[in-house]
C-alpha cells in the first residue's frame, strides 16, 4: 500500500495544482515542494523498513487488463529503491531551484514536474513490462510540454525532435515486448526471463536491438544522441535538470532491468558493439566539450559522455559494471542537476552562456565558486567524491572486459579534467569584466539547492558502501537470472 502511495502523492499534488489559481508562482511552488518533500520522506521511510525479507510486503498487484494477464504490478528491490531515492531527492531540489523565478501558468508548470516524478517512480517500481512501457513513455510527455511551452525560442522545434525521436525508439521496444509477451503469455518481468532464455539466439539478438535502440536513444548513446545536446540547451533549465538528472537514467535502468534479463544471449552476442558505440560516444562527447563555448551545451555534452560509460559498464554484464552504473546514476544525477543549476545562475546574472564572455566570478561570488568546485570535482571523479566510485568500477568493468577498450575509455579521466577545468577557469577565475562585474553571490534558496548537493557529493564519495550494499543483492539476482 505504501508503494502505491509513492505514486499517488505526486499525482495528487499535480491534481491539486491543476485546480489552483495561478496568480503567482509561490503557491504552486510550495504545493509542489510539499508534495515532493513528503514523497522523499516516504521514500526514506521505505528505505529504512525495506530489507530482503520484507520485500514482498511492498508488492502491489492489481489486475489491469485481466483478460490478457496484464497487471498493475509494482514492487521493490534495492535497485528500485536507489533510483526512487534519487528521484525523491532531486525533484524537491529542482522545484527549489525555481524559487527565484516566476512562471506564467505556474500551476501547470509545477504540475508537470510532479507528473514527471510520478511517471519516473512508476518506471522504477513497475514489475510488468507493459506497465513499465506505459510509465517509460508517460515520463516524456510532461517534460516535453515543460520544454516546449517554457523553453527558449528554438525550444519547441528541438524538443519536438526529442519527443519524436524517443517515441520512435520506444516503438522498437514495444514490438520486442509484445513479442516476448506472446511467447511467454505473461507480462511479468521476472517470469519473462524464463521465457527469454528459451528463445533462439537469433531471436534474442533481435530482441536485443529492439530494446537497446529504445534505451540507447533515451540515455542517449552514440550515434543516436543528436537530439540531446540541442534539447538540453534549448529547454528551460528545469526541464534540462529533469532530462539530464532523471529521465536519462531510465535508459540505464532499462538496460539493467529489461535488456540484460530479457535478452541474455543477445547481450552476450552484441554487447561488444554496444560497448564500442558507448565508448565512442564517451570520447566523442568529451572531445566536443573541450572546445565548447556555450556553457549549457558543454555540460550537456559532458552528460552525454558520462551516460556512455554507464552503458558500457552495464553491457559488460559484470557485477562491477552494474554496481558502478547504479552508483554513477545517482552521482551523475545529482551532479548534473547541480551543474545545470550553476549554469542557470551564471546565465541569469550575466545574460550570456558564452564562456568567452565570462571570467573572474569567484571574486564576486566566492560561495558559488566553492559549490562549483566541489560539484566539478565530483564530475571529474576525484577520489572521495561521488563521481569516483562509479567511474572506478565502470572503468574496471570495461577494462576487465577488454583491456584496449578500458584504456580508451580511461581517456575520459583526462578529457573530463580538460573540459571541466577549462569551464572552471574561464568562468570563475581570471579578471572580472563588464559582464561579470555586477555578479552577486548565491543566497537563500540557491544555497538550499547547492549546499545539500555539495554535501552529498562528498558523503557519497566517503561512504559509497551504503549504496553499493543496498543494490548488490538485486544486481546479483539479475546476474543470476542471465546465467
Amino acid at each position: 500500500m505504501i508503494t502505491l502511495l509513492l505514486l499517488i502523492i505526486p499525482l495528487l499534488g499535480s491534481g491539486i495544482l491543476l485546480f489552483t489559481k495561478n496568480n503567482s508562482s509561490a503557491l504552486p511552488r510550495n504545493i509542489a515542494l510539499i508534495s515532493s518533500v513528503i514523497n522523499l520522506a516516504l521514500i526514506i521511510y521505505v528505505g529504512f523498513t525495506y530489507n530482503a525479507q520484507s520485500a514482498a510486503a511492498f508488492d502491489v498487484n492489481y489486475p489491469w487488463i485481466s483478460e490478457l494477464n496484464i497487471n498493475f504490478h509494482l514492487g521493490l528491490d534495492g535497485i528500485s529503491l536507489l533510483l526512487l531515492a534519487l528521484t525523491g531527492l532531486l525533484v524537491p531540489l529542482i522545484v527549489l531551484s525555481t524559487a527565484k523565478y516566476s512562471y506564467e501558468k505556474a500551476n501547470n508548470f509545477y504540475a508537470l514536474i510532479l507528473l514527471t516524478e510520478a511517471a519516473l517512480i512508476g518506471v522504477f517500481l513497475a514489475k510488468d513490462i507493459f506497465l513499465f512501457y506505459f510509465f517509460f513513455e508517460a515520463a516524456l510527455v510532461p517534460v516535453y510540454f515543460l520544454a516546449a511551452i517554457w523553453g527558449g525560442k528554438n525550444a519547441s522545434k528541438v524538443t519536438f525532435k526529442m519527443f519524436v525521436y524517443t517515441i520512435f525508439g520506444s516503438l522498437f521496444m514495444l514490438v520486442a515486448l509484445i513479442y516476448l509477451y506472446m511467447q511467454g503469455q505473461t507480462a511479468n518481468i521476472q517470469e519473462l526471463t524464463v521465457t527469454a532464455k528459451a528463445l533462439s539466439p537469433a531471436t534474442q539478438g533481435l530482441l536485443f536491438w529492439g530494446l537497446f535502440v529504445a534505451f540507447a536513444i533515451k540515455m542517449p548513446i552514440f550515434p543516436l544522441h543528436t537530439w540531446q545536446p540541442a534539447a538540453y540547451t534549448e529547454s528551460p533549465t528545469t526541464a534540462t535538470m529533469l532530462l539530464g538528472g532523471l529521465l536519462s537514467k531510465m535508459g540505464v535502468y532499462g538496460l539493467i532491468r529489461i535488456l540484460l534479463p530479457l535478452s541474455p544471449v543477445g547481450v552476450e552476442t552484441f554487447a561488444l558493439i554496444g560497448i564500442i558505440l558507448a565508448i565512442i560516444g564517451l570520447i566523442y562527447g568529451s572531445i566536443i566539450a573541450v572546445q565548447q563555448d556555450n556553457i549549457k551545451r558543454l555540460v550537456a555534452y559532458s552528460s552525454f559522455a558520462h551516460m556512455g560509460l554507464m552503458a558500457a559498464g552495464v553491457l559488460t554484464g559484470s557485477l562491477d559494471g552494474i554496481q558502478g552504473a547504479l552508483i554513477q546514476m545517482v552521482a551523475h544525477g545529482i551532479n548534473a542537476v547541480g551543474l545545470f543549476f550553476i549554469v542557470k545562475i551564471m546565465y541569469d546574472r550575466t545574460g550570456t552562456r558564452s564562456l568567452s564572455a565570462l571570467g573572474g566570478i569567484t571574486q564576486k561570488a566566492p560561495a558559488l565558486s566553492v559549490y562549483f568546485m566541489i560539484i566539478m570535482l565530483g564530475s571529474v571523479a576525484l577520489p572521495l567524491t561521488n563521481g569516483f566510485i562509479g567511474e572506478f568500477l565502470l572503468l574496471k568493468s570495461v577494462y576487465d572486459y577488454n583491456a584496449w577498450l578500458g584504456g580508451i575509455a580511461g581517456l575520459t579521466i583526462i578529457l573530463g579534467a580538460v573540459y571541466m577545468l577549462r569551464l572552471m577557469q574561464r568562468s570563475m577565475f581570471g579578471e572580472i569584466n563588464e559582464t561579470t562585474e555586477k555578479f552577486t553571490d548565491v543566497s537563500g534558496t540557491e544555497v538550499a539547492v547547492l549546499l545539500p548537493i555539495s554535501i552529498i557529493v562528498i558523503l557519497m564519495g566517503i561512504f559509497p558502501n551504503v549504496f553499493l550494499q543496498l543494490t548488490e543483492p538485486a544486481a546479483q539476482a539479475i546476474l543470476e537470472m542471465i546465467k
Partner: protein
Amino acid sequence: MSLIALIPLVPLIGFLINGLGFRKIPKNVVSIVGVGASFISFLLVAYTFGYGVGDAAFNSTTFQPITVTLFDWITVGDLNIPFAFQIDQLTIIMLFIITGVGTLIHVYSMGYMSHDEAYGKFFAYLNLFIFFMLLLVMGNNYVVMFIGWEGVGLCSYLLIGFWNKNFDFGNAARKAFIMNRVGDLGFLIGIFLIIQNFGSVVYADVFQQAQSMEVGNGTIVAITAFLFIGAMGKSAQIPLFTWLPDAMAGPTPVSALIHAATMVTSGIYMIVRSNVLYTLAPGTLEFVAWIGVATAVVAATIGMFQNDIKKVLAYSTVSQLGYMFIGLGVMAYTSGFFHVITHAFFKALLFLGAGSVIHAMSDEQDIRKMGGLWGKIKVTAITFLLGTVAISGLPPFAGFFSKDEILAHTFAHNKLMWALALLGSFMTAFYMFRLFFLTFMGNFRGTKEQADHLHESPSSMTMPLIFLAVLSVVGGFIGFPEVMHLPHFLADFLSPLYEGSRAVNPEFGVLHIDHATEWTLMAVSVGVAVGAIILAYSLYGKGKNVPAEDSEITGIQKVIYDKYYIDELYAALFIKPTQALSRVFANVIEPKGIDGAVNGIGSLVNALSGRLRTIQTGGTAAYLFSMCIGIALILIINFGYDFVQITTDFGTNLMNYISTIGSGK
C-alpha cells in the same frame, strides 16, 4: 590506535576550520589553527614512533606493520577496498618529512603570506594538502594511496593557481592537473591489473602472493610499468615533467612543500612501497633507471641556462628526482629513498631561501637583476649557501651521502649510466653555484627602490631556514657508506621492508664493487663537483659576467633556454590536434554528419513523398517517417553485417508471430 587515525584527521579539521571560516577568522587565529594542525600531527607522528605502536618498537626485529582499519570503503562482490592505514618503517619516515618539513613551511608561510588577502584560504589549502599527502603514505592499499595521489594533485592545482586572477597562473595550474591525470590513468590501469591478478589491492595480500611469482613475469612487468606511468606524472619525469617548472607560479612556500619536498616524491615512495613487484620486473627497473638518467641530464642542462631563481630550482628538482629514480632503477631502493630524505631538507631550504630573496627583492625573481645580497640578508645568504653545498654533493653535507650511494650502485649496474649521472652532477654543482654567485656575490644590479627596500625576512621565515640548514648539514649522517665503517642507520631501519625482494631475488642488496673502487668513485664525484664550482666561480663569482638578456640568447643556448621546445612539441602533437578535432566534431560531424543523416534523409524522403502530401496533414508524419528511415540507416551502417542475419531472422520470427496470432492462442 585511534591516535594514528588522528594524524591525518587533525590537518583535515584545520582545513575545515580555515576553509569554512576564511574571511571571518582573524589572521592570527588562522595561523594558530593552520600551523597548529600541522604541528599536532607532527607530535602524533613522533609519539607513534616513540611509544604508541603495538608491542614492539620500530627498530626491534619483531616489529610488525600496524594496521588501522576505519571502515570498508568500496565493496563489490569479492573485492573489498578498506579505508585502512598501515604504519611501518617507510611510512613513518614519510610522516616525519611531511609533518616536520610541513610544519616548518607552515611557520614560514606566516611571514611570507602575511600581506595576502586570501591568507586563510592559503592555510586551508596547505592543511588540505597535508591531509591528502598523509593519506597517500598511510594507506594500506593502492586505492587509498590513489586517494592521496589525486588529492595532492588537486591541492597542487589549487595552490599553483592560488592567485587566480592571473590567467597564466591558471593555465599552469590546469597543466599540472591534466598532466598528472595522464599519469593517473596509468596508475589506475595498474590498479585494475593488480585486482585482476591478485583479487585484492591491500599491500600485504598483493606482496604475499607476488612472492610466489617468477622474476620477469609478464603481468608483473605490466603492472609495474603502468604504476610507473603514474610516478612519471606525479614525480615529473620525462615525458611528463613540463608541468613542474610551470608550477612555480604558485606561492614559494608551495613550491618548497609540494613541488620539492613531498608530493613530487610520491612516485619514489610508491616504488619503494611496491619493491617486491619491481624486483620481480627487471625490465621495468631498467626502464625506470634510463628515464631517471634522461630526466636528470636533460633537466640539468635546462637548469644551467635559466635566469629565474625559482625556475633554476624547479629544473634542479626535476633533475634530482631523476637521480632518485636512477637509484630505484638499479634496485638500490634505500639509496633512492635516502635521496628523498636529504633532498626534502636541502631543496625545501633552497626554495624557502629563494622566497626570502624574492621577499627582500620586492618580488623580483630574475637573478640577472640581483647580485651582492650577501651582506644585506645574512641569514638567508648563509643558509642558502649551505643548501647549495648540500645539493652539490660535497662531504659531509647531506646530499653527498645519498647521491654518492646512488652513483656507486649505478656504477656497479652500468658504466654508461654512471657516466651520464656524473655529468648530471657536474651540471648540478655548476648551475647551483652559478645561481648562488649571481644572487649573492658581485654588485647589486636591481633598481634603487629595490635597494632601499632590501631587508632580511622576519624570524618566522628565517627560523625555518636555520632548522632546514642544520638538517641539510647533518641529515646525511643517517646513512654512512659502508667503506667508512660507520653505521647506515637508514638501511638497517628499512631492511624489513625488503624481505619480499630478498625472497624473490637472492642477489638483492649486494653491491658488487670493492672498497678501493668505492673510494675512487667518491673521490671522482667530489672532484667533479669541485671542478664545477670552480668553473662557476670563474664565470660568475666576481660578478663581472651576467647572463645575456633574453633577446640576445641565440643558437643552441636558446634551444635549451626555451626548454628544447618540448611544450611547443606537446602543443603540436596533442593539444592542437585535440582542439581541431573538437571543432571538426562540433561543427561538421555532429550537425552535418550524424544529425545531418537523421534530418537530411528526412528531407529527402519529404521531397520524394511530395506527391503523397495530399494524404498527409502536416510535417509531423513525414518527420516521423524520415526519422525511422534515418535511424534504420544508421543501424544498417553500424551493424551491416549483422543486419542481413537479423532481417532474415526477423522474417522468420514475423511469420511465427503471425501464425501465433492466427492460431488464436
